[in-house]
């Protein structure tokens, strides 16, 4: 059997120290990504540092902020009343992800770090994957498949970011608390993920030994309407072909303010800053929505199987905006 060491520290400092001083060490939380990929032979840590006993679980209200411990499970966060009342699209995104069984295991910190579902990344028998073996090439870009990214992609990597939760969280400007031996730093989620560029193996700003301890979710103002719309082939237990997280503050038929993000299309959770600009102070009309959608989906990188996602993504956003403003 392929052996690895396993430790289960009880303090954050111990956990960080254990990983920081072993370049082949990984943190283990719910295990729904890490263990899968170990079984598939994609990840081979020498040391697993189980962080599930660390005191990083639970949701606290802090003024206009919800501070979510990194070890809170998806189901626990989905049951939070404040979130359901103030930002229901976060709850919708949580409950449209995975399955109940997985959501009971998977943690919020782990959800943000989940690896792509790209079939070429996940099968080590495929030699070319820049994300798995830097410099080896990209098999996916030569294949017909409909689940790849169309935004932020490059010939080096077209792997999709799979998280539903991250989509409304980037829309809300959530902030990630990162702890290391040097102390704590805060990174906005919109700056947390990295475009693949020439280094698709680097997916985010975390350095080895850094641990996500909490996520701050700013609560949108009272009266904000929000919606998460997820489009996929089957009715549940599938990753998004396209998804849209939208939040609006309305003044009659005019949109005072809007937050937009999209999933299922980007190598990272895709914040629609352009769409927000179009929507702000604009009438809630089909023309406005189309213009917002056109502004979001620009310069797509397409392979034969993904061409349809351009129009599907636009219509997904238009539908979400139509429903949330009506």
């Amino acid at each position: 059997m392929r052996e690895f060491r396993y430790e289960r520290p009880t303090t954050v400092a111990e956990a960080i120290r254990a990983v920081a001083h072993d370049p082949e060490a990984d943190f283990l939380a719910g295990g729904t990504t890490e263990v899968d990929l170990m079984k598939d032979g994609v990840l081979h840590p020498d040391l697993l540092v189980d962080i599930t006993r660390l005191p990083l679980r639970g949701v606290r209200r802090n003024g206009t902020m919800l501070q979510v411990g990194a070890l809170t499970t998806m189901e626990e966060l989905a049951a939070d009343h404040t979130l359901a009342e103030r930002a229901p699209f976060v709850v919708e995104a949580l409950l449209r992800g995975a399955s109940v069984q997985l959501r009971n295991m998977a943690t919020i910190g782990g959800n943000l770090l989940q690896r792509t579902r790209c079939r070429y990344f996940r099968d080590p028998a495929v030699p070319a994957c820049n994300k798995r073996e830097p410099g080896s090439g990209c098999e996916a870009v030569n294949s017909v498949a409909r689940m790849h990214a169309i935004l932020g992609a490059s010939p080096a990597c077209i792997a999709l970011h799979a998280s539903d939760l991250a989509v409304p969280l980037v829309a809300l400007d959530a902030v990630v608390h990162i702890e290391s031996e040097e102390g704590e730093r805060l990174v906005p989620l919109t700056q947390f993920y990295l475009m693949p560029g020439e280094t698709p193996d680097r997916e985010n700003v975390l350095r080895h030994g850094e641990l996500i301890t909490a996520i701050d979710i700013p609560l949108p103002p009272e009266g904000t309407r929000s919606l998460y719309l997820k489009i996929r082939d089957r009715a549940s237990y599938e990753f998004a072909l396209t998804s849209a997280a939208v939040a609006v503050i309305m003044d009659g038929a005019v949109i005072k303010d809007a937050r937009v993000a999209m999933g299922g299309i980007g190598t990272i959770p895709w914040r629609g800053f352009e769409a927000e600009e179009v929507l702000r102070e604009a009438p809630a009309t089909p023309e406005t929505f189309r213009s917002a959608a056109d502004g979001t989906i620009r310069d797509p990188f397409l392979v034969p199987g993904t061409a349809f996602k351009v129009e599907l993504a636009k219509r997904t956003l238009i539908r979400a905006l139509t429903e949330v403003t009506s």
Partner: protein
Amino acid sequence: MTTIQQPRILGAGVDRVDGPLKVTGQARYPNDVNLPGMAYAAVVRSTIPSGRIRRMDTTAAEKSAGVLEVITHENADHLGEAPATFIKNPQPPLQDDVIRYYGQYVAVVVADTQQNATAAAGLIEVEYDRHEALLDLHDPRAERIKDPWGEDTAWGDVRTALNRAPVVIDQTYTTSENTNNPLGLFTTLAAWDGDTLTLHDSNQWPNMIQQVVAAMFGVPTDAVRVLTPFVGGGFGAGLRCWSHIPLAVMAARHVGRPVKLELTRPEMFTGLGHRTGSVNWIRLGATRDGRLTAIEHESLTTLPLDGDEYEPCSSVSTWSYASPNVTARDQQVRLNIPWTNFMRAPGDAQGNFALESAIDELAWEVGLDPLEIRLLNYAEVDPKTGRPWSSNALRQCLEVGARRFGWSERNPEIRSMRDGHELVGYGVAGVSFFWYQQPCSAKVIVRGDGSAYVRSAVTDIGTGTYTIMAQLAAGLLGLEVEQVEMQLGDSSMPVGTAAGGSGLTAALGSAVHDACGRLIQKFVDLAGTDPFSPLANVPFEDVSVSEGRLFRRGEPTRGESLARILAVHGLTELSADGNSTPNSPDELGMTPAGARGARFVEVRVDEDLGRIRVARIVTVNDGGRILNEKLARSQILGGTVGGVGMALFEDTVTDKDTGRIANATFGDYLIPVNADIPDVHTEFVGEADAFNPIGVKGVGEIGLVGVAPAIANGVFHATGKRIRSLPITMDELLD
């Protein structure tokens, strides 16, 4: 057999007799079985589609913890060829260095634990000389086999009829490759004892596995015992002796210990075959009022380089509708792909999608109700021979289904029905399923306490064979179902046929029927030798059986219990062997008809997003006599779910350059989830079939057939878009 009164238990929705064993975890599936001293095997598969192994390095694997043996083509036993059985089987593995498809076994590692075996398998390095692979159905270099089974059919003059037809539909319909995906991971546990071998194995035909393994390993057939009392589903995947079986047997011989080889889910995708994709070219000729004058159906399907597959997609067009001129032809293409194999309704599932889509197109072309055109062209007799059917309630299926569904309430115009963002469409399809039966045998024994047991080597793949055969035997012997013990899934029992082709109920049921009749005869004969028996001098023809007693018909008090007859003669039990062979259509002067059915579906298509939802399904089937309505309904429901999968989700994707199956996991290969399946109304119509003594027609497969075209036809009604390729996905419905 007139002596046996009309069985009274038949048809009742008796709970599964094996249900308590299954829900309490006591039913031992092959992967549940563990033996003392057992070792574990893990396979290594090729990562190229075509070529030769240049070099293998097994050093690291051999040194890896717990490893007992590494077997490659360099040290594998030389095995005998797979014998020519009714179904062709893969030739023995590891006999040469030639790679014929991606996923072919190139090594097996045996170790003390599964983890050690799997880890060591990952350490084997293989270098290949890669050859150019044939992976595309339309590759002109690939070998094409015309009329592969000598079953191409033609009558009348299709060419002339099409030239003269005022209305012609000429279209091509394609279906994707699907994978059977039984939930139970196929497992072989092989244990040698000297020159005898016991196999605990997942399959659908223990006697066939026995025969093939015995031939490969050069031992007498009866030196091999195959035990398959329970299988975690098959859907056709267990109808061949796949290469992992001889691998496990060879491994057990090498290490001198029992060896268990359990496939992983990705290995199930390459190791057990899959449903071939298909191209169907159909031309229909018809009068302006929609009466068919010609059907021409040609199909193209795939084959592995070294395999064989019976997948006659065009044959449905020779029996489904009345037409004076018909041509049906099939071709196969050999490619560097894993085996294509039977999957629930092979050939019919694909061919029916094509034919029922084309019939629908014809209905719209001539302006006829899609239901009416099917009734109009109903085949009163076998259109090929003119013989009467053994039974055929297709008309009733369509009529009853239409009533239950509310077909007449639809607005016939396309794009005429709407609910919010959704366009609503109604679709219908008819199903005429193939007929299939093979010889089978069974033994029935009555014990001293009057209870019985029934034995046959066949297995129950979850369809309910244990239960319906207990019901059948109970009815024929005048016992309660609880008094009949079933013993199946053991190759040492009377030789049985495959649990496949929807043919087991007729085959085994007829054998049980025969055995029960012979057994009653023996009891009557025995009673006749006892001058004090109330049945002495009562001729066999006048004897009835009920509540464990034989009695003179019309005179219930004049009789004797089976237990008493045994006791009087000092016997502990009495048994009889029964056999069945299919009747001859020539002798009976009729054409055996498989099951018939009709599907009605309501689909909803989100106009902007192209998202498809099936809102309602009515499925009405003629399965002849239904032995157990509850279990038959389960078969239809499961088939319906498979049909929705075929229509909307299932697609085994092969990478075009490497031949690797790209989506060989349950995360990537989509099958329906509960939320995709709407309310399904099932109903049975028809009468006892005249072709076998028990009047049944199998219903294991028909439930799947016709769902896909009914959905496609509903999508057309909803949107005006005719989708001629499966699966139907939203990208095709986005404007």
